[in-house]
C-alpha cells in the first residue's frame, strides 16, 4: 500500500509509438457542445448538512432534468453497499 495519497505523487508517461489523431472524429473534452458537456459532465458539489448524499443527487437530477446521475463516495454512512460490492480487487485505492 502506498504511503502517500495519489494527488501527492507525480507520474510520468512513457511513449510507445508516435501517433497522431484524426481531427474529424471525437473532440477535445473542453470543446464539447453544451448538451455533450452535460452528458459527460461532473459537478464538484458542496454537500450541505442535513440531506443525505442520496437525496442531494435526487435534487440535482430533478433540477437539471437528468435521466441519470450518481455521486462518488458517500458522505455519511448510507448507500455504500452497491458500490463497494462492485469494486473488484482490480480497483484498489491508488
Amino acid at each position, binding site marked *: *500500500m502506498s*504511503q502517500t495519497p*495519489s*494527488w501527492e*505523487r507525480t*507520474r*510520468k*508517461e*512513457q*511513449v*510507445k*509509438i508516435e*501517433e*497522431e489523431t484524426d481531427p474529424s472524429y*471525437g*473532440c*477535445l*473534452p*473542453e470543446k*464539447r457542445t453544451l448538451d455533450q*458537456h*452535460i*452528458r*459527460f*459532465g*461532473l*459537478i*464538484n*458539489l*458542496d*454537500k*450541505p*448538512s442535513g440531506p443525505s*448524499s442520496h437525496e*442531494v443527487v435526487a435534487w*440535482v437530477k430533478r*433540477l*437539471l432534468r*437528468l435521466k*441519470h*446521475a*450518481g*455521486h*462518488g*463516495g458517500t*458522505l*455519511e*454512512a*448510507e*448507500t*455504500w*453497499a452497491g*458500490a*463497494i460490492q*462492485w469494486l*473488484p480487487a*482490480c480497483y*484498489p*485505492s*491508488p
Partner: protein
Amino acid sequence: MVTGVLPLALEDATKTIQAFLITGKEYVCLMTLHGDVDSKQLLRTLEEFVDDIYQKPPVRAAVKREVRKRRIYSIKDIEVDGRQVLFRVSCQAGTYIRKLVYDAGEVLQVGAHMRELRRVRAGSFTEDTISTLYDVLKLSQSSGADREELARRIIVPMEAAFRHISKIYIRDSAVSAVCHGADLAVPGVVRLTEGIRQNSAVALFTLKGELVALSKALMSTEQVLEAEKGLAAKTLRVVMPPEVYPRMWKTKERALMLT
C-alpha cells in the same frame, strides 16, 4: 454535520463513478473528547493512527461488517481547545472518520466522538472548484448565454476526475473496438502512465484526451512497452458511445467485401 466535496456524475458520466470511489479523501474533522487529556499524549496518539489501520464498519453502515484495512496518509494541522480537537486527515477511500475518532477516544481512555466533518478533497476534486446547490438551482433557472456560461463553470468534463488515475492513450483505430467491448491489444497503445502493474485500474483515453473506458491492466507499463502483441488491458466499463470513432477492425464480412 457532514458537508463538503461530493462529486456528482451526470448522465453518461455516471458510468465513471467507480473511479471516484477508489480515490483517496481528505477531511477536516472536529473531535470532542469526553475527558481531559494531556495535549502531548493526544498528539502522540493521533500520530499513531497515521499508518495502516483496521476498522470494522459502524453498525449503521450498509456494507458488510468485516474488519478491513485502510491507510491513513496523514493527520495534520491539529488544533486543541480544551476538549475540542480540530485536525485535517487524509486517508484511503472507505475510511470511516467517525470510527477513527471513536477509536482514538478509546486509546486515550476518555472516549471521544466526531462532532463535525467536512470533506475537503475527493481525488482530484478540492474545495477550490466547489459549487453549491444554489449554483445548480441558478443553472436550472437560466437560459441562453447565461445557461451556457453557468454550465461551463459549474460542470466540468468527466475527464477531470482522472488526473491521478493511471491512463493508457490509444490509437484512433482502436477506439471503436474498445467502445464495442473489445479488450485493448498492445498495437493499440500509443503512450501510458509509468507504474502500471498487472491487475491495476487504468482508464483508456483517446489522443484528444477523451475518456473511452475503465479497464484492468493485463500487463505492466514495462511489459506493454516491450511487447509487440497480446492484450494490454481488459475492458470493464465502456463510457464513450460506440459511434464517435469509425470502425476500423476487420470482420469476416468486411474482409470478404474487400477481396
